[in-house]
């Protein structure tokens, strides 16, 4: 029996540490720990609620924009503000662009090296690689032997001097790598293409929000980018045209590169459809309102909860009252004792580190071992993210998600049970990217139509002035970040933030055990993962990366006091 420590877990956002017990070549137990704490909610206290999004967005630079969105929605919910249609569309376009770019970066730049052996690519035959490229994606132009030869030469020159840079000390040659050299070379070529592509696609964010990362365009009540066909300083025909070009290019890349690569790579790793299942419960808040009525029904990606992998019936209704958090194994304390879970509105703040003094070799995993709290829904651990969203959409009978999931299962020759796995998680992210890339042009078109018909409103200013607010108000905002269900809660008193908190995707997925000792999704998914060589734990990275961890997002403290207020319930 050996206990392996992986710290830092790389190719993620932030600081994640895994301690994993391995017996007979398989993981028998796992502990997930976040090793960084900042205290965003404490910093927000006493500030202007209209400023909260500027702070909250900085929770994460990878998930840039999503915390800003959840934040303005929470304040709008508290104050009863309905945003104009253009603001809804601009928010959808920004968020959708974020999904596409972020998912592609995850696949190629964070996850791919778990499946793709760069060193093997050096021995590929460029002509055979070109044939492979044509077979998996007949319409993609970059498919000549000369092109793949150039890519191979580029990697060779890069490695030739002996300076492998970020690829040095990778697990190259590991027996778990299964791709033939040509597939590896094709993937390496697309790693580089995606690096160029993402820079371009994200310019949609710059057009609508000044810059990426950390857009500067949200407002409580709407958006700050004006719409006017007749001025230069607003969204006009020229900017619509530019966004349309970029959206087309996004769709093209997803259709012709990402999805074919995903299916081709998955074909070599079908055994991973039976590994990494996790807790089997899935939660999605849903997102992308198709109208301004604030209804759950208006959400393109539906809201729902799935228990015990049961996708045979409609997902359960989500009630935010059922969210609670434990600190039994987290470096915080509750005044009433650390064994009971508290609903976010009754939460308490008391960070208290009780771990070993650095430098240390092992955490005391029987006690507290993480800066993450342990969120539970109705007492159950929940997986959130693209797989949860696609499963909820699938179970809810949404047509396009069902088609896409069906297509992937048929292509790979596997059944629906394959979805509950490391491979299923990675595949769902790709399918969702296609689903969303197909939507982007539509929203840009709607914005253009509004503009053409003289609907230029971008902001509802009725409640802009703090003088128009009630003495006390409380609200929450839900969104679906690329990594999963995200909720912000805010309490406003006398025009200032009295309380602020975020319950975020990676807290759900990466949480430590709860009071009953039940493992979180990462910990649970790692059980039974094969480990061929404990010194090179490639397989563990596969499963944990399939969740796309984002640790900066996930560490927060709850800071709520006082009694619950009567609140206006608006869906978003």
């Amino acid at each position, binding site marked *: 029996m050996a206990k392996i*420590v*992986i*710290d830092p*877990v*790389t*190719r993620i*956002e932030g*600081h994640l540490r895994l301690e994993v017990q391995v017996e007979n070549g398989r993981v028998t137990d796992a502990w997930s720990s976040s090793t*960084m*704490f*900042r*205290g*965003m909610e404490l*910093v927000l206290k006493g500030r*202007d609620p209209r*400023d909260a999004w*500027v*702070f909250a967005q*900085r929770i*994460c*630079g*990878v998930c840039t924009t999503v915390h800003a969105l959840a934040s303005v929605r929470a304040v709008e919910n508290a104050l009863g503000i309905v945003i104009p249609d253009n603001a809804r569309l601009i928010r959808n376009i920004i968020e959708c662009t974020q999904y596409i770019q972020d998912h592609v970066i995850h696949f190629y730049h964070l996850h791919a090296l778990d499946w793709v052996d760069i060193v093997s690519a050096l021995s590929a035959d460029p002509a055979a690689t070109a044939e492979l490229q044509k077979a998996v994606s007949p319409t993609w132009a970059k498919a000549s032997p000369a092109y793949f030869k150039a890519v191979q030469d*580029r990697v060779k020159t890069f490695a*030739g*001097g002996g*300076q492998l*840079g*970020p690829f*040095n000390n*990778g*697990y190259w040659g590991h027996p778990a790598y299964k791709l033939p050299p040509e597939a590896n070379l094709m993937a390496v070529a697309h790693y580089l293409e995606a*690096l160029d592509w993402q820079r371009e696609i*994200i*310019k949609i964010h*710059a*057009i*609508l929000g*000044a*810059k*990426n*990362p*950390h857009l*500067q*365009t949200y407002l409580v009540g709407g958006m700050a*980018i004006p*719409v006017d066909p007749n*001025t*230069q*300083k607003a969204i006009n025909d020229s900017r619509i045209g530019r966004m349309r070009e970029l959206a087309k290019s996004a769709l093209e890349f997803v259709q012709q590169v990402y999805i074919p690569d995903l299916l081709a790579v998955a074909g070599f790793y079908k055994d991973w459809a039976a590994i990494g299942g996790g807790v089997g419960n899935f939660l999605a808040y849903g997102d992308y309102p198709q109208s301004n009525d604030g209804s759950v029904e208006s959400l393109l990606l539906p809201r729902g909860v799935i228990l015990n992998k049961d996708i045979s019936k409609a997902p359960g209704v989500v009630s935010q009252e059922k969210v609670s958090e434990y600190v039994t194994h987290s470096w915080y304390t509750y005044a009433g004792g650390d064994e009971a879970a508290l609903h976010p509105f009754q939460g308490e703040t008391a*960070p208290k*580190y009780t771990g070993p*003094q*650095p*430098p240390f*070799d092992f955490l005391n995993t029987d006690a507290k071992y993480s800066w993450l709290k342990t969120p539970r829904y109705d007492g159950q651990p929940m997986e959130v993210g693209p797989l949860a969203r696609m499963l909820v959409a699938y179970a809810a009978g949404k047509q396009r998600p069902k088609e896409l999931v069906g297509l992937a299962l048929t292509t790979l020759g596997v059944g629906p049970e394959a979805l509950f796995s490391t491979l299923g998680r990675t595949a769902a992210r790709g399918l969702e990217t296609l689903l969303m890339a197909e939507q982007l042009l539509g929203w840009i078109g709607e914005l253009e139509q509004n503009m053409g018909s003289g609907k*230029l409103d971008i902001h509802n*200013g009725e409640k*802009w002035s703090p003088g128009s607010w009630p003495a006390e108000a409380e609200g929450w905002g839900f969104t679906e970040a690329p990594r999963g269900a995200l909720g912000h809660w805010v309490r406003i008193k006398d025009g200032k933030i009295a309380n602020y908190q975020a319950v975020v995707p990676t807290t759900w997925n990466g949480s430590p055990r709860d009071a009953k000792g039940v493992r979180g999704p990462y910990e649970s998914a790692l059980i039974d993962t094969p480990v061929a060589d404990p010194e090179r734990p490639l397989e563990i*990275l596969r499963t944990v990366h399939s969740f796309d961890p984002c640790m*900066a997002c996930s560490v927060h403290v709850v800071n709520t006091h006082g009694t619950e207020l009567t609140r206006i319930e608006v869906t978003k």
Partner: protein
Amino acid sequence: MPVDAPSLEARLAARGISRRQFLKFCGVLTATLALPEGYAQKIAHALETGPRLPVVWLEFQDCAGNTESFLRASTPTVAEIVLEQISLDYHETIMAPAGHAAEKSLDAVLANTGQPFLAIVEGSIPTKDGGIYCTIGGKTALSIAENVCRKAAATIAVGACAWDGGWPGANPNPTGAVGVKTAVPGLKSLVNMPGCPMNVTNLTAVLAHFLTFKDLPALDQEGRPLFAYGQLIHNNCERRGHFDAGRFVESWGDESHRMGYCLYKMGCKGPQTYSNCPAVGWNDGTSWPIGAGHGCVGCMSPHFWDNTIPVYERLPHIEGFGVEATADKVGMTALGVVAAGVVVHGVASAIRAKSSPQATHDGSEVPVHTTTKKG
């Protein structure tokens, strides 16, 4: 350092980049760095012949926003040539190995004492309670920063957090978060590149300067490159004409907003923020905050989370705006307020010697370069 590192010609050819395009890029860098025109050739020469410099990119209390900014390097393919002049030996967000294997990569750079390397730091460093609020591989961020930055030929602190603690360091600063200059005091070659995030165009320029001249660009007393932080946004703002003419945005989405009038009344901090944002823009020059209709939040200013917030509140004590001379007065007044609780940290004499006492661009501004303490 490998002696047989591939030449630039080979790398350019592999990318299908013409020599002319490359020289044009060097010209852009020269302009960004505010160097005389002839320096383009010098930069080109250095990039062509220089060996690859190992770089260690450390992430502490960060959001990876500067890493993301780095990945958006403008003038794609050609900027990559500069990036290929460095060997990014340690960067947790993108490196292939994890855990012990990743630490091995870092140890190898530190062990090779004959080979200078560059450290880039992203995120603040918690100092409270023995630094337990951020550990990597069981070691505190504080101890890692100390160990790596002291050995580096130069350290570049990217983003507001690595400069002065950023928002983790904002009031009430629960973890005692500070920037590199405070966590590792007395570093001789420290470049501070504030911003939330920093602008990758400026980082590319600093790297090119370092590779070309084997030295850092001219810095102010805060260690910020003058080429990037020497001028007031307000003086180069595309909406300056509207300010001078007294045309202001009155409410979001109204005609004045759609016409692109001055955002001063909506809380814009351009009149007190020193940055080349209006000149270089973001995401390959696609746009920038004021250009997209929202005021500047002052993210390149000292302790901006406490000093330039509230976002939508007008700058204080300004009279008679609309007059040309007022703009500088606004900037000076605001910074004067900010500088009230000044703590000037010791900056290495090497840097101070190279600092310009004032910006030399138009003589109309005298940047106040101070470290401030939150009030």
